[in-house]
């Protein structure tokens, strides 16, 4: 579905460096990283809003250079910022921009708005942030896309709607041909729902792989500090020592055993991000890379 090869992008104060990724269709891809890691820049490249300085991006075998219209026609987008005209209501925005999409279903759009309890006659600037996002989401789904790109959509959703959101997303990818790329800071959702994880830091991808591989590749060790430190140093990513023990993220290999007194668990995405971003030698590595 998505193939990114050696893509770089220079912005005024930020650089996306040599990104390569291959994402097959039919899955939910979680894109995570600290603020300023480059998630939004990468998504802007995927949406065709930015042009890569180097490298190629292919979506469903097409490039923006040759098939911009076709790619946009098969892509639905939900962004944390306002993308619609705030001076108009949800109905007018839908009618105005929906006509460009060959698959736009106006009835479906109105039905989703009703289900999401968004008043389609009220100007968007009078709606809450969450309602504006629901409006974007309804529009994106009503365009019948093959690819959904979502940048921080869930942060402003109430918990009840978040469940509804994820069930729509799961239904969306259920035919095995459609994909979802979602950047979020709410990593609990990704633990439950994502099939694939991409972790970014300072404009680079540091981890990409399916969730099973991710869970097999890392472990969280809890217990006495000196016992954790006895593990192979090259596998120890970061250890955090506290008064009554320590916790660490380590690289794991199938069949590897640990001291019996240590508690060994799978890392959540949040734990992984937390410990990985504090890893030893991170700053030196960044300085010389």
């Amino acid at each position, binding site marked *: 579905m998505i193939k990114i090869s050696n893509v770089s992008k220079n912005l005024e104060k930020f650089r996306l460096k040599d990104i390569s990724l291959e994402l097959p269709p039919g899955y939910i891809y979680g894109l995570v990283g600290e603020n300023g890691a480059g998630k939004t820049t990468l998504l802007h490249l995927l*949406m*065709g*809003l*930015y*042009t890569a300085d180097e490298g190629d991006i292919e979506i469903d075998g097409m490039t923006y250079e040759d098939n*911009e*219209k*076709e790619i*946009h*026609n098969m*892509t639905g*987008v939900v*962004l944390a*910022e*306002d*993308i*619609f*005209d*705030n*001076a*108009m209501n949800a109905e*007018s*925005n839908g009618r*105005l*921009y929906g*006509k*460009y*999409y*060959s698959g736009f279903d106006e009835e479906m759009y109105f039905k989703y708005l009703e289900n999401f309890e968004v008043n389609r006659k009220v*100007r968007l*600037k009078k709606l809450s942030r969450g309602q504006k996002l629901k409006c974007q989401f309804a529009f994106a789904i009503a365009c019948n896309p093959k690819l959904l790109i979502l940048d921080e959509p869930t942060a402003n959703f109430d918990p009840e709607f978040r469940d509804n959101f994820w069930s729509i997303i799961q239904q969306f990818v259920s035919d095995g041909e459609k994909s979802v790329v979602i950047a979020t800071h709410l990593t609990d959702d990704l633990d439950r729902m994502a099939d694939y994880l991409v972790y970014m830091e300072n404009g680079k991808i540091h981890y990409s792989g399916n969730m099973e591989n991710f869970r097999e590749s890392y472990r969280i060790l809890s217990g006495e500090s000196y016992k954790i430190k006895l593990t192979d140093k090259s596998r120890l990513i970061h250890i955090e020592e506290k008064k009554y023990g320590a916790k660490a993220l380590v690289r794991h290999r199938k069949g590897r055993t640990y001291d019996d007194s240590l508690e060994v668990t799978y890392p959540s995405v949040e734990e992984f991000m937390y410990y990985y971003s504090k890893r030893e030698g991170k700053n030196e590595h960044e300085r010389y890379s």
Partner: protein
Amino acid sequence: MNMKDIVKEYFENWTVGRFSKMRLNESSTFLIVYMWVMYMFNVMDVLDTQINRREALMGLVMLTSGTLVYFSMIQHPLQHEKIFYLCPMNHEERKKYIWNTYFFRCAAHIILFTVGTVIMMPFSSFKPLMYPVILLNNVVISMIVPINNKTEKGYCYILFLVLTTVLSNMAAIEVLADSKNSDMWMQIILICVLIFITLPLMIGFSKHIRRKLNEAVDYETNGVRQ
């Protein structure tokens, strides 16, 4: 996107919500408000004579059409919402759409001004040279694309263009309102201002119009509508 859609979108885009984005401290809004205030003072002061009553009526027509054109510019900025750049269009189609909407907007503004000028005619004296002056000044105003950033190229052009066209039109109305004197010298001066100042300024500004329109075609070069 055909012309019918462009016309439909032009009228759909007139929304009350966008008026709230007008800021009194913006020079263009300030200029419009200032002109209306000055006009009101002028009317209160001079309605006693036949000539000035005529001038007041002509000024009202001119100011109304000018204000409508200004509102139209606010309602239809060159910059588009982000969703516009995500819609299924290729570069050429976006370019065609942006240029066509610009031409349509210019035509709409010229029509508005022309209607104003036609309404003014019965109140004015017969000085045929002044109508082309007003018409050409109005064409220039209709073609302007807003440049609000003082550091942006073309800002000086727009400043002088607005000043010269507005002042010339005000002077032309005064000449047209006065049926007793021919004001030949004034007429010659206004024609010279048009030929030697306004038109060269507009030719200079046209490259900035082209630049702004081309910038609006792609998201990366376009300042998204605020």
